[in-house]
């Protein structure tokens, strides 16, 4: 009887069924689309972040840069390259000079590597890796031999005759030429690939760093950098006047994004060459589970009070560009819009159910008169609302999936910029103007095609909402129907 009655009611009152179902369908379609777009934007953010911070990194630990104190030239001041009289090689009146310097990246504060041990002892930390962000700047050039250009002959003390031109230098006329080259270098533990920047990359050629590389002068290059610098596997790259053999090239997992650094070398070598013995600039931490992230963050902050501890959600705020705007739009407008439409749909369902019960007062009074219990009537009304909700849910899922399909076909492009760890975590500070580290800050600017995923949980959410909407409307309508006293219900129509 329940199903027959339900079927007849829904079929017999098509207009009401259609209005409630359409309202519910619109709301559920909107919730599906907003949720899926939100997931798509989050995936895009994660992709950008992974290219910088690595896969599986839940937390990063760094130290905020402090302003240099008076009289402290620090590491961030103008870089100087001093050449003595005996520096360089002189050929044909031209002296070639070259110096290469490896220093902590601008805005980066290094701290003792023992912090890594502290982090690994924190509960629920499954993996941790330390890195040292460096910038290599090389200065090379050609200057004329001093003896050729000196205005006074040092040997004789005579002044050159008027009209006698100086010789030497790259142009043979006493001129000079200099070039400055700068690239980022990341020192990392070659044995640890589970967490950290290299965990997110794809090896395109050669090999990646291995445990046996510790202490050796080998380097892995970002393939984009290798292309611009005309370097390949087997070549050498000079870092701090030391030649490194290039053993591999890597690229970001997403085709468009750059990796976190131009050059990757073993951490111990980086520390030695930069003079930053036992120093690191960032620690990448992976928690046992996503639920433990907050606890791990708090514990690390307690154990390392001077450090800045950021989670992925903190890091997400460092993603900029239209991706960030899309994320804000989805979070704010999309969320509120779907909530409002959902509330409106629930309200429509409730009002229609109540008005239906009111219109059917005689019907329910009659059923009570012939012995139907309150429970039976509540079940009947709730069942009708539930099925209306489910019909709406089913239509909503179809409309929502169609909406997602359209978005994926259109595939809007979002521009994302993720600051490097130094900018993201501490902001540039401590470093004075000048220097040659500017190129280091332009990491991971990407165009990402928004791909909206369809997940089982979104479908489940839609079904859950349609059931919830139907049940709420049904319970309210059923309660109203059951509260009718049969005598009054019959009297009201007498």
């Amino acid at each position: 009887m329940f199903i027959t009655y339900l079927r007849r009611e829904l079929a017999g009152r098509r207009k009401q069924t259609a209005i409630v179902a359409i309202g519910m369908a619109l709301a559920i379609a909107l919730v599906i689309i907003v949720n899926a777009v939100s997931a798509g934007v989050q995936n895009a953010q994660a992709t950008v972040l992974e290219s910088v911070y690595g896969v599986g990194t839940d937390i990063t630990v760094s130290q905020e840069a402090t302003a240099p104190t008076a009289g402290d030239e620090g590491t961030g001041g103008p870089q100087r390259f001093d050449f003595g009289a005996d520096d360089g090689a002189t050929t044909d009146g031209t002296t070639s000079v070259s110096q290469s310097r490896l220093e902590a990246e601008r805005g980066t504060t290094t701290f003792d590597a023992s912090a890594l041990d502290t982090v690994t002892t924190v509960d629920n930390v499954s993996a941790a890796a330390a890195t040292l962000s460096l910038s290599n700047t090389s200065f090379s050039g050609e200057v004329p031999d001093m003896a050729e250009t000196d205005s006074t002959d040092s040997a004789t003390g005579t002044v050159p005759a008027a009209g006698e031109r100086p010789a030497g230098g790259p142009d043979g006329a006493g001129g000079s030429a200099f070039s400055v080259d700068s690239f980022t270098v990341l020192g990392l533990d070659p044995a640890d690939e589970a967490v950290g920047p290299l965990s997110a990359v794809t090896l395109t050629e050669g090999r990646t760093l291995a445990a046996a590389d510790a202490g050796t002068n080998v380097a892995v290059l970002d393939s984009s950098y290798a292309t611009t610098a005309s370097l390949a596997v087997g070549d050498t790259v000079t870092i701090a006047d030391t030649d490194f053999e290039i053993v591999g090239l890597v690229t970001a997992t997403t085709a468009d994004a750059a990796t976190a650094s131009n050059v990757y070398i073993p951490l111990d070598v980086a520390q030695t060459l930069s003079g930053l013995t036992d120093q690191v600039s960032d620690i990448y931490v992976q928690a046992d589970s996503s639920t433990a992230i907050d606890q791990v963050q708090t514990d690390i902050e307690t154990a390392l009070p001077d450090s800045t501890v950021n989670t992925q959600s903190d890091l997400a705020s460092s993603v900029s560009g239209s991706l960030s705007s899309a994320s804000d739009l989805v979070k704010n407008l999309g969320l509120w819009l779907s909530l409002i439409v959902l509330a409106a749909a629930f309200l429509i369902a409730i009002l229609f159910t109540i008005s239906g019960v009111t219109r059917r007062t005689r019907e329910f009074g009659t059923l009570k008169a012939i012995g139907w219990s309150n429970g039976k009537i509540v079940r009947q009304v709730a069942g009708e609302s539930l099925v209306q909700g489910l019909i709406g849910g089913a239509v909503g899922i179809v409309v929502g999936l169609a909406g997602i399909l359209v978005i994926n076909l259109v595939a809007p492009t979002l521009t994302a910029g993720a600051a490097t760890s130094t900018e993201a975590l501490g902001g540039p500070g401590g470093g004075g103007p000048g220097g040659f580290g500017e190129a280091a800050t332009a990491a991971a600017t990407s165009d990402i095609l928004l791909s909206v995923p369809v997940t089982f949980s979104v479908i489940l959410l839609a079904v859950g909402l349609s059931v919830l909407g139907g049940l709420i409307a049904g319970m309210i309508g059923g309660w109203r129907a059951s509260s009718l006293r049969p005598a009054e219900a019959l009297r009201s129509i007498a």
Partner: protein
Amino acid sequence: MYELTSVTKTYSQGKRTVTALKNVSVSIPDGQMVAIQGPTGGGKSTLLQMLGALDRPTDGTVELGTANLSKLGDGKLGKIRATEIGFVFQGFNLIPTLTAQENVETALAPLGISASERKSRAAEALAAVGLGERLTHLPAELSGGQQQRVAIARALVKEPTVLLADEPTGNLDEDTRDDIMELLEGLWRDRGLTLIVVTHDTAVAARAQRRLHIKQGVLKEVA
């Protein structure tokens, strides 16, 4: 057997209290056909609701067989309505979206009867009121007289001991009225029902074995 003792029913209408039944006492033996007449607002419908276990008196007792209807809870009253009492209403009160057969089946739904038995019993009940060919018709597809026959089939399909009819011919023309009354009388006679008919119509009341008159809540026998 109905036994009403000093039954009083009052309603609150705002600040005013309306007394619908005043100290009504009456016995109705099993198998009797009784007509209740009286002016509008005199208490006919209220008395029918007391007899039909739809409402409880403010004072006094209403007994049906061994059950004291004035003391039972809603659930037990519902069970008595589902098994013992059949209702026929002036406005037929059929569910517009259900077919004739399904409308009749609604009376069997609270009894936990299987779907197949419900269907066959509903079909039999409709055949007994002359609508064996109209099982799948919706109420809107039936005439007033036919709708009332469906309502009578719904009232009788559960084989109650009492049939309460509230102005059963009030919405029907004279010819149809006579058909319906003949049907009710025939069923009453054949099944040994207690038939209580509330009516304005003297011609209908004249068919009853016993006539009661209620005015301003006071019940009197009509000689």
